[in-house]
């Protein structure tokens, strides 16, 4: 219940505030979203496994977003930004899929 309210509040705030993202940060936004998705699905799975911990969730969320953006930033500086963002997407994508598969097993037992 609380997570759902937080999510709705966040979405509402983002739409209403109409935040202008600085041009330099725009390339990292999609990566940050994927990293955040990974943390959220990891948290969901932890809830299903009965080991959820709010502190771990928040720390992993913030760290995921920052590290993913930092890796891509580093790649941009080295001239391999596109390749590194692909790498980040692939790794996080695999984790998201595996976690969602576990969640699905918990929910549907299939």
């Amino acid at each position: 219940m609380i997570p759902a309210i937080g999510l709705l509040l966040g979405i509402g705030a983002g739409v209403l505030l109409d935040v202008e993202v600085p041009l330099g940060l725009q390339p990292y936004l999609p990566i940050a979203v994927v990293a955040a998705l990974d943390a959220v699905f990891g948290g969901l799975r932890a809830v299903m496994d009965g080991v959820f911990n709010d502190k771990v969730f928040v720390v992993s969320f913030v760290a995921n977003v920052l590290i993913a953006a930092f890796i891509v930033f580093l790649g941009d500086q080295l001239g391999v930004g596109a390749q590194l963002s692909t790498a980040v997407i692939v790794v996080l994508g695999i984790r998201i899929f595996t976690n969602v598969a576990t969640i699905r097993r918990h929910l549907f037992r299939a």
Partner: protein
Amino acid sequence: MSLITDLFAHPLDEGYQDAAERRRAAGGPESSGGAPRMSAALMGGMLAFGLLLSIAAVQVRNDRVVVSAERQSLVERIERENAHADDLERTLAAVQSDIVVIEADQLDDLAAGRELRDSMEVMQGSTGAAPVQGPGVVVHVDDADASSQGSTSTVLDIDIQQVVNGLWAAGAEAISVNGQRVTALTAVRSANDVILVNFRPLNPPYEVQAIGDSRTLASRFLEGPGGDWLLAVSEGSGIQFDIRTEKSLNMAGASAVLRVAQPEEES
């Protein structure tokens, strides 16, 4: 491989497992669920997630609007400039025909003027500035059939150059390629596999029209270097060509304006 195996085996953040073990060691429940203090941190985390999602979505939508607006304004500018260029061309044509009428009026008054006008017309015809008409031949050159393979099976700029030069050598007095009048300033060349005449790109098939003595022009062309060249390339790479004689050909004038070169003062 071990990296990928690891990725599949432990997709869950290991922090959760560690925290659960610590909690178990302390004698509490494995999950922090139900504890009242979870609300603030969890709420903040999900709020940040929602904020991130919606900001990203809004950003992408805004970008799209900006890009399409820029595109639209560019398209409008191109259309406006095109219309402007068309207007200028129409004005130019009108002014040029006015000049012709005025020149004729002025020169008709005097006998010397009429002579001058006649010689001017001859000169304009031979330089390609004025439209001309008369009997002549049409050399039709086209790429080889698609069935015959080979990279040399398209008409090259040198083929058109040889045809034009061959026609001059055979006694042609005025030549145009696909409606582009060949003047003293005309270059026949290719850029990016497209043949340019007067810097206008042309598409095959190529119609080289030449005004001249229609009884001898065709045979002299075929016997000369132009005909030799065409026969050689049609045998070698399948270029198609044919020559026909026309009783009357019309050619438009081309603007061969000298901007830098000045006529030398007669001494």
